[in-house]
C-alpha cells in the first residue's frame, strides 16, 4: 500500500513545484491532479505540509513560485481511473438534468432542452419535499430503484429484477463494504476469507484487511490474456483450508487492472464452482459499459445465473455491483453506486436493510447520476443527438486506445502487453534488467515501484506499480488508465517509451 503512496505523493509535489509556470495549460491533461485518490496516498501528503499552500484562492491569487527545472512541462497522471480528472468531458444531458434538479428555477429557463426539464421535474417529484436536499430511503429513491431494476432487466434480456433488491450507496465501493460487513466476522475460530484475484486494485484488499478478513489469492493467467481459470480457483480455495473460512468469491469483470472480459462459458464455470463450494458470489461489474474488444461481449453474472436455470438460479447468492463512476459518464465525484442482491435469505435481507440504513442514504446527486445512467435519452428526445455524439466520441477514444495502446507497448523492447478487451486499464509486463532489480533492492523498493518513481521524476508520468495490485512472484507490471483523451495518451506513451529505453540502456 505504501508503495503507490510514495509515487503519487511525488506526483503532487512535482506538480506544485511546477504549477506556477503551467497552471492554466493543459486543462485536460491533469495538470495538477492534487487529489490522487489511491489508497493511502494521503500519507505522503500529510508528510508534505507545505504542498497545500500553493493552491490558488481568491485571497491568494498567485501560485507560489518554486520553479524547479524539469525536462517536461507537466505531470500526467494515468495511474487512477478518474475519467474527468484525466480530461474526459462530462455528458451534457447528465449535467443539465443535475443542474436543473439542484436549482429548480432552471426548469423555467429557456436554456435547457425540454426533455431535460421534464426529466428534472419527474425526479424532483420523486424527492421528498421536491428537493434533492432531502434524505432518501436507505436503499435510495424508490423511483430510481425502479429505473435501475428496469435497466438491469433490459440489459439482461428480460431477466426480472426487483427494485427492493437494489441498494444505492455513495459509490459502489461502499456497497462492497456493506455487503462484506454482513459476511465477515471474527467470532469464529478461523477468520473469514474472500477469494480475490491477483492482480486486483488495492482498495478492495484494503477493505478486507480493515474488516479483518483474509485475502485468498487466485492468480489470473496472463498468457491467456488474464483469463480466470476454475482450476486455479480450486487450488486457491484448497490452499486456504485451515487458514481461513472462505465464504465469498470476488470477481471483477471486466477486469481491473487487467482489461480482460470473461466469456459466458467462463462465468458458467465460476457459478458452478461457487455453488459446489458454497461461496457467496460478489460480481464487480462497474466496467460493464466499457467492452469494445473484438469478439468480446459483456454478459452479467446475473443473466448467466438466471439462464442456467434451477436449482442454481434459485440458490446461488449473488451481489452484483455497478456505478456511475465508469463507462461513458465517468462521474466519480458524484459518488453513485449500487448493488443488486440476488437469492439472499429473506431473513438476511432485513439485516441488509439495517446495515445499509446506517449510512442513512446515498448522496442524492449520485442517485440522480445512476438514474441518468439507467435511462439515457432515447431516439426522438431533443437531447438524443448531442448525447449520441458525446458518447460516440468517448467510445471512439476508448476503442482507439484499447487497440493502439497494447500494440504500442508491445513494440517497446522489454515490455509486453496483453490485448485489451474492456475496462479502463492496461497492465503491461515489464522485463527489467537484473541490474535494475538489484539497484531497487539496494534502495529498498519493489522494482516496479522504483521504476514508477523514476518514470515520474524523469518523465513526469504517473502510473501504478504492479506490486500495488499483486502479481506473480518475479514479474513486474505497471497499470495505465486508457480512459484518457487520445492526445494525452500519445504523450504518455511517448514519454514512457523514451524513459524506458534510457532505463534499459542504463542497466544493460
Amino acid at each position, binding site marked *: 500500500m505504501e508503495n503507490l503512496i510514495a509515487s503519487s505523493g511525488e506526483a503532487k509535489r512535482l506538480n506544485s513545484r511546477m504549477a506556477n509556470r503551467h497552471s492554466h495549460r493543459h*486543462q485536460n491533461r491533469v495538470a495538477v491532479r492534487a487529489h490522487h485518490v489511491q489508497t493511502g496516498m494521503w500519507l505522503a501528503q500529510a508528510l508534505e505540509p507545505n504542498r497545500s499552500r500553493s493552491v490558488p484562492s481568491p485571497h491568494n491569487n498567485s501560485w507560489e513560485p518554486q520553479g524547479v527545472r524539469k525536462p517536461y512541462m507537466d505531470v500526467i497522471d494515468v495511474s487512477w481511473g478518474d475519467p474527468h480528472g484525466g480530461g*474526459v468531458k462530462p455528458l451534457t444531458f447528465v449535467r443539465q438534468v443535475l443542474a436543473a434538479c439542484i436549482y429548480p428555477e432552471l426548469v423555467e429557463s429557456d436554456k435547457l432542452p425540454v426533455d431535460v426539464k421534464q426529466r428534472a421535474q419527474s425526479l424532483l417529484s420523486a424527492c421528498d419535499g421536491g428537493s434533492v436536499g432531502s434524505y432518501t430511503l436507505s436503499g435510495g429513491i424508490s423511483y430510481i430503484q425502479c429505473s435501475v431494476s428496469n435497466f438491469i432487466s433490459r440489459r439482461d434480456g428480460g431477466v426480472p429484477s426487483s427494485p427492493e433488491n437494489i441498494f444505492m450507496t455513495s459509490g459502489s465501493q461502499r456497497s462492497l463494504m456493506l455487503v462484506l460487513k454482513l459476511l465477515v466476522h471474527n467470532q469464529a475460530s478461523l477468520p473469514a476469507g474472500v477469494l480475490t484475484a491477483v492482480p486486483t486494485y488495492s*482498495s478492495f484488499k484494503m477493505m478486507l484487511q480493515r474488516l479483518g478478513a483474509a485475502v485468498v489469492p487466485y492468480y489470473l493467467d496472463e498468457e491467456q490474456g488474464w483469463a480466470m481459470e476454475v482450476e486455479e480457483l480450486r487450488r486457491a480455495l484448497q490452499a486456504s483450508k485451515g487458514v481461513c473460512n472462505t465464504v465469498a468469491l470476488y470477481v471483477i469483470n471486466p477486469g481491473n487492472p487487467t482489461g480482460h472480459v470473461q466469456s459466458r462459458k467462463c462465468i458458467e464455470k465460476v457459478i458452478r464452482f461457487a455453488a459446489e463450494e458454497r461461496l457467496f458470489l460478489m460480481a464487480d461489474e462497474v466496467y460493464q459499459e466499457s467492452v469494445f474488444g473484438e469478439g468480446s461481449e459483456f454478459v452479467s453474472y446475473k443473466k448467466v445465473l438466471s439462464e442456467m436455470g434451477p436449482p442454481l438460479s434459485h440458490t446461488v447468492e449473488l451481489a452484483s455491483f455497478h456505478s456511475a463512476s465508469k463507462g461513458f459518464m465517468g462521474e466519480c465525484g458524484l459518488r453513485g453506486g449500487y448493488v443488486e442482491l440476488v437469492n439472499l435469505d429473506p431473513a438476511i435481507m432485513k439485516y441488509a436493510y439495517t446495515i445499509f440504513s446506517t449510512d442513512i442514504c446515498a448522496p442524492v446527486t449520485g442517485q440522480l447520476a445512476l438514474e441518468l445512467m439507467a435511462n439515457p435519452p432515447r431516439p426522438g428526445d431533443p437531447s438524443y443527438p448531442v448525447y449520441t455524439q458525446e458518447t460516440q466520441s468517448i467510445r471512439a477514444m476508448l476503442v482507439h486506445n484499447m487497440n493502439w495502446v497494447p500494440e504500442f507497448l508491445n513494440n517497446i523492447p522489454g515490455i509486453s502487453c496483453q490485448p485489451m478487451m474492456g475496462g479502463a486499464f492496461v497492465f503491461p509486463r515489464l522485463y527489467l534488467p537484473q541490474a535494475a532489480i538489484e539497484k531497487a533492492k539496494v534502495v529498498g523498493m519493489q522494482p516496479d515501484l522504483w521504476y514508477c518513481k523514476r518514470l515520474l521524476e524523469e518523465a513526469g508520468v504517473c502510473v501504478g506499480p504492479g506490486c500495488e495490485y499483486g502479481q506473480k512472484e518475479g514479474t513486474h507490471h505497471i497499470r495505465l488508465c486508457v480512459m484518457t483523451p487520445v492526445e494525452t495518451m500519445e504523450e504518455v506513451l511517448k514519454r514512457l517509451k523514451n524513459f524506458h529505453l534510457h532505463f534499459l540502456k542504463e542497466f544493460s
Partner: protein
Amino acid sequence: METTRLTQLHLFHSNHYNVSVLVASPLPNISWAISGTECELQKPNMTENGLGNRVLNMDTMNPNVKRVEYAVRGPIVQRALQIEKELKEGVEKPFTEVIKANIGDAHAMGQKPITFLRQVVALCAYPDLLEDDKFPEDAKNRARRILQACGGGSIGAYSASPGIEIIRQDVAKYIEKRDGGIPSNPDSIYLSTGASDAIVTMLKLLTSGEGKNRTGVMISIPQYPLYSAALAELAAVQISYYLDEDKCWSLDVNELRRAVKAAREHCNPRALCIINPGNPTGQVQSRQCIEDVIRFAAEEHLFLMADEVYQDNVYAEGCQFHSFKKVLFEMGPEYSSVVELVSFHSTSKCFMGECGFRGGYMEVVNMDPEVKLQLTKLVSVRLCPPIPGQALLDLVVNPPQPDEPSYATFIKERTANLDILAEKAKMTEQVLNTVPGIHCNPVQGAMYTFPRLSLPEKAINAAKEKGQAPDMFYCMKLLEETGICLVPGSGFGQRDGTYHFRKHHFLNLYHTLFLSLCRMTILPATEKLKVVLEKIREFHKRFTEEFS
C-alpha cells in the same frame, strides 16, 4: 455517585415488567421492502423461492449486525412507508397523508433551499451556465473557484480522500472565525459523507482490544441511534451516561464519573461522545458544563468526540453555542495541548438543511500524528466524499459577504429559516405541555422535542401482550390512526419509569429499556405543525381514555 437519578429496571412499581422480551421480538408485519411507487413490482422467481440453505444465513452472518438497530429508520418508519403505499393504492385510512417527523429532514418538511447555495452548486454541475446572465457574479466566482480546484475542472472527478484542499482551508478559516481567532489547521480537517461517516470512522479508529481491554465509548442516554448502532457493529462497549430530564436534559459530570467508574470494571473507556446542541433532547450546554466535561476527559484520559451539527440551531434566550474547541483552548495549555478532541459538523442541519448532499467535516485536535496517518488511510477506503456535498459545505463555511450581490437574499433566507425553526420549537413545547399526560422540556436548540408520556397501565399491559415496548405501541397506534410518524423514545435509549427514581444503577438500557418518551422533529412547516400537534393532542386524549 451522589446522584440517585437512575432507576433499576426490574425492582419497582406496578409498571415493571420483563422488558428483555421486547428486544427479541420484532414488530409484526415488518416489511423491509420499499414501495415500488412508479413501476410495477416484479416478483422474480429467483428471489421468491428462497428457502434453500444459504451460504449467508442467520447462523453465518456477522453476529454484530444483529445487534445493530437504527430507530430513525426502524420498524415505525417502514410501516409508514407501507401505509403510504397503501394510500396510493386507494386503501381507506382516517387520513390522507403520512407525516414523517421521524428524522431531521428540513427540506422534506417544506423548508426551502438557500438560493445562493443551489445556484453555485448548479453552476458547478453545468458550467455552461457561467455564461448565463441570470446568475449573480458572486455565485459564478464561487463556482469558478471550486471548479478550478476539481480534477479536470469537473465535479465528476475524484477529490483527495480528506476532501478538496481549498475547501479544507475554507473550513479551517470558518472555524477560526467562529472561535474568535483560535487557529485551525486545514490538515486537521477531513471532509466526510455527512457527519455520520466521520463519526463512524472515528469510532472505528478508537475501537480495539479484547475482553476487559475492549474499547468503551461513553454516549448519552437519550442518544442519537447512530452511535449505538455503530458501537454494536464494531462490538465496542457502550457506556451509557444519563442526561437529567428534570434539569432540562443537562449533563452532570458526576453522572459521567459514575458511568466511567462502573465501566472500568469490564472495559477500557477510551472516548466520550457529546451531542451539543442535543439530539434528540434539544439542550444547549453551558460554557461551565463544557469546561467540566473537558476537565473530566483530561482526568480520565478520554478522547472527546463533540457532535456539533446543530451549532446554528440555538433558540432559547440566554443560551449560546460554545464549541468544545474554543472552550478547550481558552482553558489554557494545561488542557489545550493535551486533550484529544474531534468535532463534527454537517450541511444537513442549521439554516440550510441540505441532508441529501451528504456534506460534512470533522476537525481533529491534538491527535497523535501517527494516528492521524492511520485516519488518513482509513478515509481513503471510501475514496472521497461526494463533490457536490463538498461544494455545498464550502458555501456554508464561506457564505456571501456584505459587499457581494447575493448577500442580502442570503441573509434574508437564512434568518427566515432559523426564525421558523425557533417558532416551531416554541410552538411544539407550548402545545404539548397543554396536553395532560405529556411533559415537554423547553427546546433550547437542535430540531427535536423529546416529550415524556405518562401512559396508563392498561396501555402498558396491552403493549406487553403485543410484545412491544409501550412507546412503540403508542407510536404505532398514532401512526395507524393519524398518519403521523414519530420515533419511540426507546430507540434513543431512556431510563426506565421516568418518575420513579431509585438509587442509580448501571444498566445497559439500550437492551432493556421500556419507554415512556417519544420524539418528534420540530420541522414541519408551521401550519402543518399546528395540525400535527392538534392531532397528537386528540390522539393522546383518545388513547388515555381507551386504556383507562
